[in-house]
């Protein structure tokens, strides 16, 4: 298939649906590819979300670290969960600096009919915020400052601070 998005091939195709990009995302290009994949594969609905860096509190950019092995496992689990509902997931995220007014996060859920995609997008983005291993920094005067007050401990956090057994 010319697009490189092979929705109906087995597992290897799943990897292609998690895109990690250095710097800002090329939103139009990614959407064009995702949209092409949607209508060619007979999904009736594509529901998407784009996160764009806002200019506020004097920041020049946001910057991101991520940990790919755990991110991939988390994504694959979601792909499996959506697959059980006949839906399909695509996601793109930036690594490194993303200036104000550029985008760092995109995701889309494809489903045969709209209801599953509309409902699952909300659940997916909420879990993304809580459990995708991605760390955000404000870039101010060229320095990266960890956005601790906007960050959420992942499920199972504090394990090593617990009592020894």
């Amino acid at each position, binding site marked *: 298939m010319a697009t490189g998005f092979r929705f109906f091939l087995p597992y290897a195709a799943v990897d292609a649906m998690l895109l990690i990009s250095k710097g800002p995302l090329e939103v139009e290009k990614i959407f064009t590819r995702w949209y092409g994949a949607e209508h060619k594969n007979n999904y009736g609905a594509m529901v998407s979300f784009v996160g764009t860096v806002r200019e506020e509190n004097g920041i020049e950019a946001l910057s991101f670290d991520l940990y790919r092995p755990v991110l991939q496992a988390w994504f694959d689990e979601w792909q499996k969960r959506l697959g059980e509902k006949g839906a399909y997931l695509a996601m793109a995220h930036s690594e490194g600096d993303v200036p104000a007014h550029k985008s760092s996060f995109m995701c889309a859920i494809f489903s045969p009919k709209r209801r599953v995609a509309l409902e699952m997008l909300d659940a997916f983005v909420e879990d993304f915020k809580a459990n995708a291993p991605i*760390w955000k920094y404000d870039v101010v005067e060229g320095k990266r400052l960890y956005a601790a007050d906007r960050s959420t*401990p*992942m499920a*199972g956090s504090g*394990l*090593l601070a617990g009592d020894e057994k």
Partner: protein
Amino acid sequence: MIKVEFLGPIGKEPVEIDAKTLAEVAAALKRDPELEKWLETAAVAVNDTMVDSLEVTLKDGDRVSLLPPVCGG
């Protein structure tokens, strides 16, 4: 030896610890005052699989990763 990695903003070089369980790793890391606040909030992976018990047994060459609070998007 067990390799312990500190991801994202923890910003600490990996360390090697002689341990047979995750509880032993926890005990060793608690001796480092620099890590105190991170241990309270970090989640833990062993060989890139998230875990939720200190009773996980470890073998030579295993990797333990500390994942501090996240904020993607």
